[in-house]
């Protein structure tokens, strides 16, 4: 049995810099593969709707007629499966989290992809 076993550790931490960071004034630690939020590029989307079918939390809704791509950020679990599966590579994973929101809602994007004309 020992007494004052913690003193050594406590004294060491007194002279060291704090291990915590002042988030959000200081940026949070991120790695190149960190999963923050899904980013959509409407110029490349071919409206195949595979992302909608593969989404485990059913956060994505693609409407071919209205040419819109919707994501409910409150449902999205940032699992990266839509990014992995997308055949036209129009989905990306950003390393930063989305900003805190005041109200629930969906983010809607317009699909601007134009199918290239078949060569004559």
């Amino acid at each position: 049995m020992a007494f004052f076993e913690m003193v050594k550790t406590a004294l060491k931490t007194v002279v060291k810099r704090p291990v915590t960071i002042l988030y959000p004034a200081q940026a949070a630690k991120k790695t190149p593969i960190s999963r923050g939020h899904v980013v959509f590029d409407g110029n490349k989307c071919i409206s195949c709707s595979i992302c909608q079918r593969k989404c485990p939390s059913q956060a994505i809704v693609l409407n071919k007629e209205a040419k819109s791509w919707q994501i409910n950020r409150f449902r999205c679990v940032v699992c990266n499966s839509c990014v992995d599966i997308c055949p036209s590579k129009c989905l990306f994973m950003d390393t930063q989290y989305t900003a805190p929101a005041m109200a629930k809602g969906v983010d809607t994007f317009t699909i601007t992809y134009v199918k290239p004309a078949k060569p004559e």
Partner: protein
Amino acid sequence: MSKQITVPFGPQHPVLPEPIHLDLVLEDETVVDVIPSIGYIHRGFEKLVEKREFTDYVYIAERTCGICSFVHGATYCQGIEQIMKIDVPERAQYLRVIWSEYSRLHSHLLWLGLFADSFGFENLFMNAWKIREDILDVMEQTTGGRVIQGSCKVGGVRRDISDEKLDAMAKDLDRIDRDMKELTTVFLQDSSIQHRLRNVGVISRGDAYHLGAVGPTARGSGVAIDTRKLGYGAYDRLNVQVVTESCGDCYSRCAVRAKELFTSTDLIRQAVKKIPDGPIDIKVTGAPDGEYFMRAEQPRGELVHYLKGNGTKFLVRSRIRTPTLTNIPPLIKMLQGCELADVPVIVLSIDPCISCTER
């Protein structure tokens, strides 16, 4: 005999990370009986299995628990792979072991911190979580997620770790080992902690065994059971050491977890040394038809995933039995006869994870 009174403990209590309700029947300051009740955070995960494709359900299985998420995902995948008779590549099996052991490190460090907090040692709590942050950093660098890794899939894993990174991880473990040594010395040798934990919440070896204790709760009473010894995944190629203590009190359960930190780092080093080159996943075709009980060792004990498929993309039944559920009857036994002031420490000593239990 003095008059008996009932004092409610929880579901909201400063020491409880998650809601569990205990009705404590007291005679003066002594607890004579305990009536537990759960059901505050049921989320219906098992029903959801009928509405999601079995390959997508991995992400939901992982979210059963916020601490041992990787083990849940890996156990589910291994269960499906057993039904479908999929031969998972060696490298994927080793990667699963590495991430499982990192999960164990992070869970045990989190628990050691919370346990220190439960007996009022704030400084120790912060130091345990400081080391845990290094583990979480490695998780994020290798999988992309700190707590929910999402790196497991049916047929293998989704991400590879480069050999240079594996070597760097093994090297970094030496520094983490030194920090953990300093931390665990306080837990195991400090006089004030020993005064608080020795002979508190004692459960005998026989009671622990017959009441179905699993994991560190059983091993703290001298029952040497560890599901990793079954050799699932790549564990059959590694030397797994089972840590046991004989006293069965809160100190023993704390000591088992403190010592298991070093067996986990040892397992990671062994896995890094033995990991072969090759593919990390295999293409999965078809759908599961059959049933399987998959057992795995979670940081809290034995986890069981029962899975049943009927040849379609949607499973018919999923049943998860988590270690906390089986550790509740031993907890009742521990609490009978203890002082009211010891209840928070004893409840925390089984490492209750109620989100897991209720799913």
